[in-house]
C-alpha cells in the first residue's frame, strides 16, 4: 500500500523529442488513477517512468514516500500488465505466475500457495499447465493479471490492458479489474484511450494532452465541469457539441439572436458547449435542426444533423420514442443550466 507522487516529471527522449515537459500529480493510497488522452500524448511514457523502464529526465517520482528515480524496476515493488500481456511463451501458466516470486527467493511451498490463490481468484485453476499459446485472448489477459497480483506489489501499472479484447469481454474484464483492485486496495495507475473505460474505472481521472495535464479530478466532476474544451470533447460519448455564440448582458445567443439563456454574462464571443444527452425535442425550442442521419441503438438513439441558424454540426442523444426521421427538421431546446461556455481562443472554461 502506497501513495505515488509525481513532482515536475520531465521526459526528453534521446533525439530531442520532449514527450513530457513537466507534470505533477498526487495519487493517494489505494486509489485507481486513470490516465487518458489521445494517441501520442505521453501516457505510456509516464507509466513506464513510474515502472522504471524509462529514464526520468527531470523531476522526482516517489512511491510510498520513497524516491524511486534511480531504482531498478525490480526494486520499486510494482507490477505491470502490458498491452500485449508479455507472457513468457516457453513457460506454462503456472511458471509465468511463479517466475517473479522464484526470482525473489520465495520458498517453493509459499509460491505454490500464492499462485493457486491467484489462479482461484481469476478462474485459471484449470489452465495452470498450459502454455500461453494454448489460451484465448481473454485467458491470456487473466494470466497477465495473475502474474501481477501474486507478487502482492504496492502498485499496479496497467498499459491499455484491455485493448486486445473484443467489446463484450472488455466490458466484463473492466468490471473484474475494478472489483479486484478494490478488494486488494492496491494503488493503481491505468492507461487507456477509451473514455468509457476511463469514466467507469477511475477514482481519479487525469486527462492528458501533448504531455501536459488538462484536468485532474473525479470522473463525474470532469464530466460536469470540464475545465477546457479539450476535456469537454474527450469525456462523454458522443462528444460535446460546440456552437459559436455570444455571452453578453442580454444572455447567451447563437446565430442571429437565437437565445439559449436569459441570464446576463460579460464574456463576449464564446464557444457554447452542449452535451448531446442534454438536448430534448421541444416544439417551442430555440434550435432548429436539419436531421441527416439517425442511429437507433434500442432504448435510445443518436441524431446527426446541422443547426439551421448557424450551420454548425450537431449530435443529439434522444430516447427512442422521440427519434425523428432523416430529412426532417425538428426544434430542440436545452436547459440553460447545462450550457458550458468556453473561450473561443484559449478553449478555457469561462464560468
Amino acid at each position, binding site marked *: 500500500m502506497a501513495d505515488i507522487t509525481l513532482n515536475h516529471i520531465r521526459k526528453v527522449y534521446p533525439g530531442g523529442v520532449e514527450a513530457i515537459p513537466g507534470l505533477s500529480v498526487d495519487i493517494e493510497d489505494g486509489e485507481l488513477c486513470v490516465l487518458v488522452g489521445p494517441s501520442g500524448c505521453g501516457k505510456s511514457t509516464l507509466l513506464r517512468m513510474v*515502472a*522504471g*523502464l524509462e529514464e526520468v529526465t527531470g523531476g522526482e517520482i516517489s512511491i510510498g514516500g520513497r524516491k524511486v528515480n534511480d531504482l*531498478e*524496476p*525490480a526494486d520499486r515493488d*510494482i*507490477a*505491470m500488465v*502490458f*498491452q*500485449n500481456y*508479455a507472457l*513468457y*511463451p*516457453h513457460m506454462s501458466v503456472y511458471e509465468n505466475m511463479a*517466475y*517473479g516470486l522464484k*526470482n*525473489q527467493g520465495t520458498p517453493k511451498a509459499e509460491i505454490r500457495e500464492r499462485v493457486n490463490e491467484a489462479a482461484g481468484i481469476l478462474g485459471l485453476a484449470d489452465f495452470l499447465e498450459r502454455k500461453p*499459446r494454448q489460451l484465448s485472448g481473454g485467458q491470456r489477459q487473466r494470466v497477465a493479471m495473475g*502474474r501481477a497480483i501474486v*507478487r502482492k506489489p504496492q502498485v499496479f501499472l496497467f498499459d491499455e490492458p484491455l485493448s486486445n479484447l473484443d467489446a463484450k469481454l472488455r466490458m466484463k474484464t473492466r468490471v473484474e479489474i475494478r472489483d479486484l483492485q478494490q478488494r486488494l486496495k492496491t494503488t493503481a495507475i491505468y492507461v487507456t484511450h477509451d473514455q468509457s473505460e476511463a469514466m467507469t474505472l477511475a477514482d481519479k481521472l487525469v486527462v492528458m494532452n501533448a504531455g501536459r495535464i488538462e484536468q485532474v479530478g473525479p470522473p463525474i466532476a470532469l464530466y460536469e465541469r470540464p475545465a477546457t474544451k479539450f476535456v469537454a470533447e474527450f469525456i462523454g460519448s458522443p462528444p460535446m457539441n460546440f456552437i459559436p455564440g455570444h455571452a453578453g448582458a442580454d444572455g447567451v445567443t447563437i446565430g442571429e439572436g437565437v437565445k439559449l439563456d436569459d441570464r446576463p454574462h460579460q464574456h463576449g464571443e464564446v464557444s457554447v458547449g452542449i452535451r448531446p444527452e442534454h438536448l430534448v425535442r421541444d416544439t417551442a425550442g430555440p434550435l432548429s435542426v436539419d436531421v441527416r442521419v439517425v442511429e437507433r441503438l434500442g432504448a435510445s438513439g443518436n441524431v446527426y444533423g446541422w443547426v439551421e441558424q448557424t450551420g454548425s454540426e450537431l449530435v443529439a442523444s434522444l430516447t427512442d420514442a422521440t427519434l425523428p426521421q432523416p430529412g426532417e427538421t425538428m426544434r430542440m431546446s436545452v436547459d440553460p443550466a447545462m450550457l458550458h461556455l468556453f473561450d473561443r481562443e484559449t478553449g478555457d472554461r469561462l464560468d
Partner: protein
Amino acid sequence: MRTKRVTFRHRWLPYLLVAPQIVITAVFFLWPASQAIYQSVLREDAFGLKTEFVGLANFERLFSDSAYLESFWTTIVFSALVAGLSMGIALVLAVMADRVIKSALVYRTVLIWPYAVAPAIAGVLWWFLFNPTIGIGAYAMGQLGYDWNHFQDGNDAMALIVIAAAWRQVSYNFLFFLAGLQAIPRSLIEAAAIDNAGPFKRFWSIQLPLLSPTVFFLLVVNVVYAFFETFGIVHATTGGGPGNETVILVYKVWRDAFEGLNLGSSAAQSVILMVIVIALTAIQFRYIERRVEY
C-alpha cells in the same frame, strides 16, 4: 477459399523453366555422386590398368583402418570446437549488439566481411598470423610465454585450423543470433526486469530458451560447414600435419585420391560423407519448422 492459379497451356513450358536448375544439379551433383558410388565398389591397380568389382570391400577396409577412425574422431573434435567457438563468440557479440541497436548497422557490416573471404584465403591469412618464424600472432604468444609452433605441436595445429574456420563463421552466426534476439518482443524483457530478474537471469531464463530454434539451426549449419567446407583451410595452413593430427575427413578424401592414388577408398569415403550430409539436412528439415510463437 479458392485461390487463383496460373495454368500453363503448354505441357513442356514448366519443364523448360526448371531445366537449367536440373541441368546444374545433374552436372555438379548427381553425376559426380553417381561416379563416387560407382568408384566406391571398384578397385584399381596402381597403374590404372585393371579395375575389378569388389563389392563393399572398400567400406569394410575403411572401418577396420585405424587411420580412418582416427580421422573421424579428429573431425568430430574439430567440428565441435568450430561450432562451439564460432557460436559462442557470435552469441556474445549479438547480445551486446542487441543492447546498442543504433550502432548495430556498423557492427553488422564489419562483422559480415570475414564471411566473404574464401576458406583458402582465410587459411593463408591465419597461416601468416601464426607462422612460428614470421607471424605476429605467434610472436605475441611467445611474448606471453607460450612457444607456439603448429608445425610440431598437434594441439597448436588443431587450434589454428579451429580458429581459422570459426573466424569465418562468426559473422554468419552473429546475423542469425541478432535477428533472433530482436524478434523477442521488448516487453518480455521488461516484464522479466520487473519480475526481479537481472540481466544474466533474463538471458538464461528468457532469451536463450526463446533462441533455441536458432541455436539448433546454426548447430547443424556449423557442423555441416566444419565437415565439408574447411578443406581449403586445412590445405592452406597445416596440410594435415603434424603427422596426421589435423587430417579431417574431407582432407583425407582428397589426400587418399590424389596423393595416395587409392581411388576406390577415396570414393568410399566420399559416399560416407555424402550420407552424413544427407542425414544432417534431413534433421534440419525435420525440426526447423519448430518455431516460437509470441
